[in-house]
């Protein structure tokens, strides 16, 4: 705001004070929507915590049992136990398996779409990938229950078709489209001058991708993977149908497991409002919240660490 803008502001004053007011209002609205994300996250956290708090501060609550026991007997007639270790392990196992399957495919597809294919193939691939992202999770659940489950029994030694591998495959299929579209955006955001420079230096296409593009787009690609992880950790309906919903520590990828999300979905509806069981389920919600927060924070720190180098 110096000499060059002075005539312009004078002109604005000549217009009406209404337009100035309008501008301020718009500015305030934009600021508000910016802050709202933080407000919503805090409000959700507070709400969940308020529901869980009475049981956390009660005498019977044993945080060690809650975190490190596999005994989940919320409606037992003789001995009620709330241990979530098996559920946490289920969530971690299914997510990890899904990422092992989805990250290579997702990033590979992103690289192909952004660097290797022609414009017509790219457009049609992008449409199909976006269509894949639009399939509702309950439909994926049906696929898991009917198609994947039968194949699983037929072609593996699994005694039952609904297990961790099934859940991992379905979650991978669900997160690949996210990883592809965001990863592709990240790769395309790398300025063309980088590509031109690399080609001018005599780099092959592979060298271009691995030495130039991947390091340059690292943050965006990490964000893509993280959104995929978020989708996998938070997914409920499909994993409920695919994993077999069995409370046990998984010993192999063909074991049935239960995830934290599926457990909440299956039990919250019938837990009497205000009961310990109901509050413990909210507490597992906080647990999920903390897990995703930790994943995001770690990734953020990793990105900052590498950036400093």
């Amino acid at each position, binding site marked *: 705001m110096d000499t060059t803008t002075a005539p312009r502001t004078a002109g604005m004053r000549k217009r009406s004070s209404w337009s100035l007011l309008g501008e301020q209002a718009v500015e305030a609205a934009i600021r508000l929507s910016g802050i709202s994300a933080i407000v919503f996250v805090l409000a959700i956290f507070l709400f969940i915590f308020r529901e869980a708090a009475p049981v956390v501060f009660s005498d019977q609550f044993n945080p060690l049992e809650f975190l490190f026991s596999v005994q989940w007997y*919320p*409606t037992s*007639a003789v001995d009620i136990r709330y241990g979530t270790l098996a559920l946490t392990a289920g969530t971690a196992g299914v997510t990890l398996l899904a990422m092992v399957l989805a990250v290579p495919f997702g990033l590979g597809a992103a690289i192909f779409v952004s660097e290797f294919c022609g414009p017509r193939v790219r457009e049609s691939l992008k449409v199909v990938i976006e269509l894949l992202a639009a399939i509702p999770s309950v439909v994926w659940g049906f696929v898991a229950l009917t198609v994947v489950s*039968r194949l699983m*029994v037929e072609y593996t030694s699994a005694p*039952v*078709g*609904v297990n961790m591998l099934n859940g991992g495959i379905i979650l991978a299929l669900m997160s690949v489209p996210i990883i592809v579209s965001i990863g592709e955006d990240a790769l395309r955001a790398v300025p063309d001058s980088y590509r031109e420079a690399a080609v001018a230096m005599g780099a092959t296409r592979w060298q271009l991708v691995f030495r130039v593009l991947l390091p340059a787009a690292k943050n965006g690609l990490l964000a893509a993977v993280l959104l995929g992880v978020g989708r996998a950790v938070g997914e409920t309906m499909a994993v409920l149908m695919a994993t*077999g919903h069995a409370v046990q520590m998984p010993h192999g990828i063909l074991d049935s497991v239960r995830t934290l999300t599926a457990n909440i979905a299956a039990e919250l509806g019938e*837990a009497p409002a205000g009961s310990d069981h109901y509050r413990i389920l909210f507490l597992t919600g906080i647990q999920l919240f903390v897990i995703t927060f930790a994943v995001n924070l770690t990734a953020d720190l990793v990105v900052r660490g590498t950036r400093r180098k």
Partner: protein
Amino acid sequence: MSHAFRIPLALTTGLAAMVAVASLASSGCRPRAEGVAIQNKGSDTMVNVAQAWAESYQKVAPGVNVEVSGGGSGTGIAALIRGTVHIANASRDVKPGEADQIRRNTGLDPKDFTVGYDALAMYVHPDNPLEAITFDQLSGIYREDGMLVRWSQIGSKVPGCKSDEIVRVSRQSSSGTYEFFRERVLANRDFKLGSRDLNGSKEVVELVSTTPCAIGYSGMGYATPSVKILKVARRAGEPAYPPTIETTWNRTYPIARSLHMYTLGMPQGPAKAYLEWVLSPDGQRILEESGYVPVPTAAVTREP
């Protein structure tokens, strides 16, 4: 579910229930208005038959619309406590704590109508050569301290089940079927962890039909040609019975229970007429067609 655990909760839920009752009183449930609606909610076991009743009742009394939803016996009774339904379906008795809550919140006693019987069938894959099973064996398979984990331990060799592992199929912990099985077969002890806890009666049969190693329990009304039903004996050496209408009535089949509809106090007007129709031969025939066992009084009028 321990009552000592439930009763203090009544205090905390009391406020919410009072608000619900107050709003209900102000909005009023107009039972006698044109195009009456009867709200009917509860047991997932009963949701199919309740739906069938509701549909047929449209022909009997065109002005009355019965709105059915499931969610579980506990959900239905909770809705009755809040006063948001006229009839709650339950595949178990109302617990003393719940009856207390109903009295406290509405000032009325729950009125119990036995509308039929349900026999829980033990399902296995059709390839399983096993014919009969005892309560001891079921306990060994399902109970927390049970030692039976392989089919060979009970003398069965299932073709197609390479691992020999008994895949236990169960229900989610809040389901009435789960509680009934625990009470009747496991003598209220806990289930062994690691069973596949599915969210519906039909899903149990579905999973068992595609899994050679599996065993599961579900209402006998959910039987399909692609599963096999086991005979059940109370003790080894005693005769084993298949779940049928006759064995349910004469109580020789050990895993059977009565199905209830609960109202707040004596039902009036359309709800009363509906319950009378449900217990009439017409209503009971529909129940039987859905795979359940009718109440004996209606059966007297049943054609042989």
